[in-house]
Structure formats: C-alpha cells, structure tokens
C-alpha cells in the first residue's frame, strides 16, 4: 500500500510539519481499521503498514514532543501482534496439507495475535484522541 502524499504547502515550521504528517498518517490508519474487523490477511497487512508509518513518524517526532512517545510504544506492540499474525499467514500458505495439527496450532496462534491487536487498538484509540484533535 502506497503512502499518501502529505500536503506540506506553505509549511516552514517544524511544529506544523509534525502536525500535518501525523494527521495524514493517522487518517490513513483510521481508514484501514476495517481490516482489523474483517481479520483477513490483506486487510490486516494494509492496516499494519499504515500503523507502521504512523509509528515511525511519532517516534521521529517524539524528540520534539515527548507526549508522542507513549503512543508510539503502544503502536509498536500493535504492530508486533499484527506482524506475528502475518508471519503465520505466510507459513500457513506454504505448509504441506498433511500437517493438520501444525495448521491448527498456527491458526489458533494467529487468532490470538489478532485478538491482541484488537485489544491494543482499543487502548490506542483513547490515547490517540489527542492526535485527532491536533493537540500536539
């Protein structure tokens, strides 16, 4: 999924740069949360990539605004959970059909990873209200 272009017209101040980048990446993540509800491979992958872009931006800008650090840490946990689910999807796609017990284990692990991601996202939504209202 390609990163959207951030509208930086007229930006000549780092504070405004932070706000515009974070607002754009946050919007992209919100727009893809349906992937988390559907729990399908592609939807989860797209949502994970959007969260990764948001997390990288927050980590980078945390040097300028420390309040962003806590959100970036939670996003890292969310991304770990989604990454582990993605790894299981990739292995399940190539696993020999005869390995049914391993498949069952991987599917159960995958669902647990997605559950963890859903719980992380629920917590994050509250934390991110400050970003939604641009209070950075």
């Amino acid at each position: 999924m390609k990163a959207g272009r951030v509208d930086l017209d007229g930006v000549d101040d780092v504070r405004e740069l932070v706000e515009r980048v974070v607002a754009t990446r946050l919007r992209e993540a919100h727009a893809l949360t349906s992937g988390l509800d559907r729990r399908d491979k592609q939807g989860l992958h797209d949502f994970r990539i959007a969260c990764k872009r948001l997390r990288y931006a927050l980590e980078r800008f945390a040097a300028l605004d420390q309040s962003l650090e806590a959100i970036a840490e939670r996003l890292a946990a969310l991304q770990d959970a989604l990454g582990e689910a993605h790894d299981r999807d990739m292995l399940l796609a190539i696993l020999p059909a005869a390995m049914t017990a391993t498949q069952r284990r991987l599917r159960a692990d995958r669902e647990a990873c997605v559950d963890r991601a859903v719980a992380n996202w629920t917590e994050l939504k509250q934390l991110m209200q400050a970003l939604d209202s641009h209070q950075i």
Partner: protein
Amino acid sequence: MKWLTKTIRREQRALERARRRFVRKPNERRLHDVRTTGRRFLSLLEDVAGISELERLRRRVKRAAAATDAARDATIILRLLESSVDGAEGSFAHPLLDRLCEQERIATRTACKELRRMRFDS
C-alpha cells in the same frame, strides 16, 4: 528547516552504517538492522516528499529496503516453522525446512550483492 536537514542526514548515515555492516558480514541481526533502518528512512522521505527534493534518494532507499524482503521472509518463516511443527509431523516438515534454508541462503546472498553496489553517504 534545520531540524529536517539534520534528521535526513542522520538517518542517511545510519542506513549507510547498517549497509556496510551487513555487506561486510551478513547475518540475521545485521539483515534486520539494515532493513529497519532503510524502512525508517524511507518513511521519513515519504513524509516530507512535499518539501524535500530527494526523489532519487527515496527511490534508492526503497530499492535497498526491497532488496532485503526475500531474505527476511525466508528467515522468519524458517524460524517460525522450526518452533511450531507438531512433534508427530516432523517428517512432513523436513522438505519444507530444507527448501526454506536454501531460500534464506540464496536471498541473503542476493541482498548482500545488491546492497554492496549501493551507497548512502553521498
């Protein structure tokens, strides 16, 4: 914007350091480092594409990050398979484990070859 110029230079130097370490002695840890450093830098360049004339650099960083994809995938899937095979199904897993080992070896060598040709310190 001084902050942006300094940040771009810092991330560029970090990627060059990670690249050099990886091509000197490729291993899983160094592959991970060069990959994440590249992805972070790419994300910065995408974020500021509207005010920074660094399109050629962005394309080069994107190529560098993509060069590590296959090696990373093979490594991760291999480790996951090793740790999750059900005891009774070990014999079914052996051919896949062998194939993934070979993929990991070839993909790491290819990534190393591609990254050897790239430079990020200029």
